[in-house]
Structure formats: structure tokens, C-alpha cells
């Protein structure tokens, strides 16, 4: 089955524009983690900070464009992995090992389709 692992962290820990020293450190960890995952990792990416986000909203057929991320929360979507594993337990085990700088949440969602 394919799962997406959505990484939510308070992006402030990575400094303005995600350019602080913490960023260097976490990128290194993600690279090592990706190597460790090998073929389990189908895809993934880190995201620029929510300051760079733009949202297109459709309401009653009318579309508007907004500055910023979809929702204002304490933790923001900062990156994702797409993985291919046999079941949820394996996906949970991968999510537990996924590097976060300090506190954070990993949301695990199965991908639609025959899997």
C-alpha cells in the first residue's frame, strides 16, 4: 500500500525563511533517512515556509486567491514522504523514525487507488 507521511512542525524552529542552522541539520538527517528507506520511499519533498504559500479558494463556484497557507495552526505542513509498505503498522514504524527537529506530528494517510 502507498501512504503519504505529512510532516507538521512549528516552522519557526528553522528560522526566518527556513534558513537557520536547524535547517542544515534537519536536511542532513532527511537525506540519511531517505537513503535508509531505499525503495520504500516512492517520493517526497521538503516545503518552503508558509510565508511563501498561496491559496486558491473556491466558494460557490467563485475562486479567490489568498496569501498564506490553508489553515493557521501551531504546526505547519513542512514536507512529505510517499512510501510503499505492506500495511499501516509498517507505515507507523517508518513515521516513528522520521526525523523532526524538536516537536512535531506525522500524519499518515493511505493513498487512494488499488494501492
Amino acid at each position, binding site marked *: 500500500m502507498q501512504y503519504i507521511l505529512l510532516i507538521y512542525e512549528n516552522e519557526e524552529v528553522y528560522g526566518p525563511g527556513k534558513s537557520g542552522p536547524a535547517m542544515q541539520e534537519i536536511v542532513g538527517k532527511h537525506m540519511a533517512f531517505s537513503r535508509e528507506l531505499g525503495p520504500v520511499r516512492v517520493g517526497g519533498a521538503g516545503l518552503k515556509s508558509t510565508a511563501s504559500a498561496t491559496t486558491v479558494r473556491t466558494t460557490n463556484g467563485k475562486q479567490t486567491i489568498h496569501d498564506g497557507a490553508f489553515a493557521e495552526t501551531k504546526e505547519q505542513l513542512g514536507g512529505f514522504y510517499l512510501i510503499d509498505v505492506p*500495511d*499501516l*503498522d509498517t507505515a507507523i514504524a517508518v513515521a516513528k523514525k522520521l526525523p523532526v527537529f524538536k516537536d512535531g506530528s506525522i500524519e499518515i494517510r*493511505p493513498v487512494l487507488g488499488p494501492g
Partner: protein
Amino acid sequence: MNSAALDRVFRDASGRIVAALASRFRHIDLAEDSFADACEKAVEVWQRDGVPNDPAAWLYRTAFRCAIDALRRHRTEARYASHVQPENGNDDSIDDEILIPDERLRLVFICCHPAVAIEARAALTLRLICGLTAREIARAFIIPEATLAQRLIRAKRKIAEAGIPFEVPGPDAWPERLDAVLSTVEVAYSKAHEDAAGSGPYAGFAAEMLELTRVLAELLNNEPEALALSAIIRFAEARRPARVDSQGMMIPISEQDPARWNHALIEEASHYLKRAIELHSDQPRVIQACIHATWCSRQDLTNPAPWHAILTLYDALLEVRDDAIVRLNRAVALAEVSGVNEALDELNSLATGLKEFPPFYAVRADLLRRAGKIEEAISAYDIALALVPTSAERRWLEKKKTDMMLNK
């Protein structure tokens, strides 16, 4: 066989058969539906041809065939059938012990998976493992049947869609997953236990918890915590007949007449506890079970209450599980051994963690009363009374408060 006897046969067979089918077809709904179909057929066939020698084996074979038929009908789900062989399904000489693989443990771990909504876990376990109907479970949890049915549907959909595996967890995840199973049972049982009179909506529910923990202890007979939990629930249930007086008022454990306890249940509990201690004597639930066992070993009210032994056990428990509830219970024993003032000091340090917990105020009121701090005791009694919903506990608090006012 009358319909009540038939229901009994169906219920007794249901856990093992549904678990075996669910595990075989990796599909809980298909397992439940096929078992229901088999029961329907049984009513008709057994009436005509008589009840087979081994009804469970008959039900399993029939349900298995119903499942295969259903899969053939739903060609879109044919992929489930691809790895299923109808092996030995037609050999009537095999008895059910061999014929029906015992997959209940797998199913328990699925029902209590941390990814399943916490409020659905106990209900799903009681439904699938103990064969309770949605109506019975809804009554036990005092929620509308439609709400309960929705929860079950949502939980089963989550299990199917999220890809929760039909496996017993591996060693890495074992402690966390076992704890999720045991906590599910504890939470469900605490609902049955909090009503001392046992006349409330949870009264019949305790019997189901005895059955569920019996099955768990059988399936997990090398897990001290699972055995200890089975023991705890039996010790607690054994005391139920003595927990209220003839006026419907709660009687605290130290004042209960041991002659009114259920000694057969105490014996069963001791048996589970003995095995748990042999395996691992200092796990939290094992120590909790020892606390229950110490109370239940009291012969009659003329014996002194075993407060020293209880306090020692709470000290040991604190080493492995340091939380506010353990400290509160320990404070009750501390008051008896070291005096009320020491216990009150301990309680003051717990106040923030137990703000909404009625027993905290009940204990506090009792200690303040004994320390002669009447005004403070009155306000603690009033807070406890405002928080306690069940009648036997209310009556006891009201009496304690009234007695105190009269003696002022």
C-alpha cells in the same frame, strides 16, 4: 432447541468463527455477514434435521461457504478470494477445535489498534470477540444504538481503508499494543465498576467484562499484565455484593463484611494472580492485583484492616507507576498508618492534577473531617456531591456530611 438455547450456541461460537473468517478473508464485514447467514441457515436446517454433534463446526463450515459464495457474487472483490482455498471445509469428521483456527488474538489487537478511535475499541471488541449485539453494547455504554452502530461502522471502515494488518504485533510494538488492549478493557470495566450498587445501567455489563478478560487471559497466558487485569476485575466483582448496605448506601472496602464477598470469584482471581506473579511480580497491574488480593484475604471484620500491607504495596506501585490516582489511593492508606495530617499534606500536592475527580474531594473531605477542620470539610463534601452521579456514593457522602454536622 428453543430460541434462547440457539442464541447461546451462536454467541458462544461467534468469537472464534468471526475471528477465523476475518483473518482468513482479511475482511471483518464479510466475516460477520457470513456468520449471520450461517446462523440463519442453522435455525432452518437444525429444526428439520436436528442439531449436529458439533454445532460450532457446522456453523464454521456453512459460514465459510457463505463467504466464498459472497465473494463469487461480488466479482469486484475477487482479489480477496484469490488466496483462499476451501480446504477441509467439507470434511465433516474434523472437530471444531482443529477445524476453526483460533484467530481471536489477532482480532483483539485489530479492534484495540491505537489507530482505531478510542471510543470504538471496547465496543468493537465486545461485538466481535464476545458476540454482543449492538443493542446490548449501546445499553451498556448508555449511548443510542444508532450512535453505537455508526461508531462500529466507522471503525471497521478505518481498519479496512487504513491498511491495519491482520497480524499480532511484532516484538518492537508489543508493549505499546498490549497496553492499548489492556487499557481498553480497563476503561470499559471502570464504567461497570463505578456504580457500586450495580443496579444502574452497567449492572449486566460486568459479566461481559469477566468473559472478555477470561478470553484475554487464555489468549495471553504468558503476559503478567493481562493475567493481572483478569484477576483485578474478578477481585473487584467479588466484592460487589458487599459494596452497598440495605439502604443502598456505599460501604467503603475497609468496612465491607468479607462473608458477603463472592469467594468463588476470589479463588479464580487468585489463580490468575498466582500465575502473573510467577511471570513478573513487579509490573504495575500485578501490584494492583496484589492490593486487591490483600483486601480479599481478610476473613472477617474483627480482623484489623490490612492498612500496613496496603501502604507497602502502594509504595511499590509508586516505583513503577507514579501518577495522581495512585498517590490518592496511597494517601488513604497513609492516613491510617501515619495519620491524617501527613495524608492531607500529600493530597495538597495532588490538587491540580485531580480537579474534576470526585474521589479526590471525597477523600479530602474525609481527612479534613477527621482532622477537625469542619468548615473546609463541608466545602469538600459539597464539591464531591456536585460531581458524583451515582446514587450509592452520593448517599454515603451525604451521610458522612450529616453525621459530621450533628457532631459539630
